[in-house]
């Protein structure tokens, strides 16, 4: 169905963009259900004739794939899945909670003056690789390397600029007079924020949470350099399916990638359906 605004060139450009974005996803999804013989067949097999779940099984039962004569998976993905969920959820919760209070402080009280919001953002101005090595050294010294505490601390530090700035923009959108009206109605400053501001930005709060979760969930580099054996996450695990004996286990890797995508898709969907604007419409004179 073409609406008036969808002209043929627009549709063409959108189709090209869609193919560019979706083709890797399609390829990963297909690879995840290919038996080992089809992984890097030449010519390429687009859709497997005998789809299988063996790759998914192998993620959690490392020996499952041996019936195809392929071995070498040394580590089950269970720990990685647990590690990803644990680190992402805790780090997201902390980042959003701290970011929320920072946002209210900056937006309502001008805490830290004009410079603070920019200083917070400056953490994002370095390439992560530039600060990864110092962090390895610091964390080694204070015995936080290869620990979830250390990884979560880094995740919070890295995502805090985003949560602060995103939430600040949502708090800015709520007229401060609504909080002040609540104060005059009998609420304390703190309760006015809890009972008035936060309910009014809950759409933004949800979107920010999802966004920060996506960042944490897909983070690779810090997890790689700060983990040895105790800590493992899905992105790190994905890099471990390159073996000496059987080459890269593309199918197993793709299977884990498909699993990793599920929360991202849900979060992305959540963001777009919850990013409701106009929450405060009618509160103030237009």
């Amino acid at each position, binding site marked *: 169905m073409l609406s008036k605004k969808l002209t043929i060139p627009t549709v063409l450009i959108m189709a090209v963009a869609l193919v560019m974005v979706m083709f890797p996803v399609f390829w990963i999804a297909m690879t995840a259900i290919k038996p080992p013989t089809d992984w890097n067949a030449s010519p390429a097999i687009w859709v497997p004739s005998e789809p299988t779940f063996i790759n998914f099984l192998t993620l959690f039962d490392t020996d499952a794939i041996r019936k195809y004569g392929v071995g070498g998976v040394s580590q089950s993905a269970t720990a990685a899945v647990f590690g990803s969920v644990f680190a992402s959820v805790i780090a997201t919760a902390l980042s959003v909670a701290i970011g929320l209070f920072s946002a209210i402080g900056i937006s309502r009280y001008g805490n830290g003056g004009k410079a603070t919001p920019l200083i917070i953002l400056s953490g994002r101005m370095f390439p992560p690789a530039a600060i990864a090595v110092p962090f390895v050294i610091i964390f080694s010294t204070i015995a936080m390397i290869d620990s979830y505490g250390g990884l979560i601390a880094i995740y919070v530090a890295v995502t805090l600029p985003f949560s602060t700035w995103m939430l600040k923009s949502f708090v800015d959108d709520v007229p401060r007079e609504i909080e002040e009206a609540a104060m005059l*109605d009998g*609420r304390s400053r703190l309760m006015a924020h809890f009972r008035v501001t936060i309910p009014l930005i809950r759409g933004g709060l949800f979107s920010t949470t999802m966004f920060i979760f996506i960042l944490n969930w897909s983070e690779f580099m810090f997890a790689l350099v700060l983990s040895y054996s105790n800590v493992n996450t899905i992105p790190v695990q994905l890099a471990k399916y390159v073996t000496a004996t059987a080459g890269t286990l593309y199918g197993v890797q793709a299977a884990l990638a498909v699993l990793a995508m599920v929360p991202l898709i849900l979060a992305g969907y959540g963001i777009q359906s919850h990013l409701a604007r106009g929450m405060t419409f*009618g*509160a*103030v004179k237009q």
Partner: protein
Amino acid sequence: MNRTHSIGIKRPSALVVENLSKRFRGKPALDGVSFEVPKASLTVILGPAGTGKTTTLRLIAGLDRPDSGRVLLFGEDVGRWEPKDRNISMIFDNLALYPNKTGFENIASPLIIRRESKQEIEKKVEEMAGILKISHILKRLPRTMSGGERQRIALGRALIRSPNLFLLDEPLSSLDAKLRIELRTELKRLQRDLGYTFVLATPDYTEAMAIADTVVMLHQGRAVQVAEPQELYDKPIDRETACFVGAPQINLVDASYEPNGNGGYIKVAEARLPAPPHLQRAFSSGVRDFELGIRPEHLRMGDPSRAQIRSRLVDIEPLGLKSVLTVQTSAVELRLLVKSKETREFSIGQNMGIETTDSSMFLAFDRTTGRRIA
């Protein structure tokens, strides 16, 4: 003006504002404002936009802290009190209704916060809705209400409890002219009937004249004059106040006073007007240049050959009962407010004579400072 003003009728002061000053980013927003609000009175803070009206109200409510000065509520210094402890109701200039709550919940919120019983809340809200004629919109969200309905909901939220003081920040500004006049009459009646103390900020001098017991005239962060409305109009403290209060605007012309044997006269351009007694007294020391202020209603048309001032008609602006005439004299443009039926035979460009009617209402201002001399 740094002293506290006392007001004609002696009643205990609900509010005393003493020497209140506030700077925002180094720029003074309020500069030593003082006034007193008697209990059960309606005080209007009048002034152009950006002159510190909202700042004054916010300092009284405790939403901002003053750099210096004191706020006393019933004799108590509330400087360190949280807004919630001051027992003040405020209507914000943007109303600030809770957008996610219905009309009922908005009005009830001060009672809900005070944990009053459900039956009690319902009873009070229904009573309030009856007074404000908004019973039919209690179940609706603010976004589905008209401007006037939102205004009334905000009013209901402020009136539902009996606070020490009501602060109203341009509460009628978003309404159309008819509703504004209707609601301001209602506001005044509510205030008087319930014996409430109102402090209302507005840039609209007609609103101030219509409802105020006392007007605090703010100009550039200073309370330049605290007076009853008619006094503000008849005896404005300075040129700015004279211009701000009254439409069409007061006529200001350069003039000089020249004494002679029988009382002296005012020389305006080539015209000589006999000086009224109050000007004679003010200038008894001798010849002096000043700025003469004559309200448009104190001028009238006269015989072109014999009138005190000669002019040419530039514009006629009919306002219904009265019309505003703009005329050009040799020196300045003057505005006259005259009955419309007297203007019927006039045409633009014709020569006209101008006479003054009530010279006892003449105002004289110092040319440099703008202060009223007489």
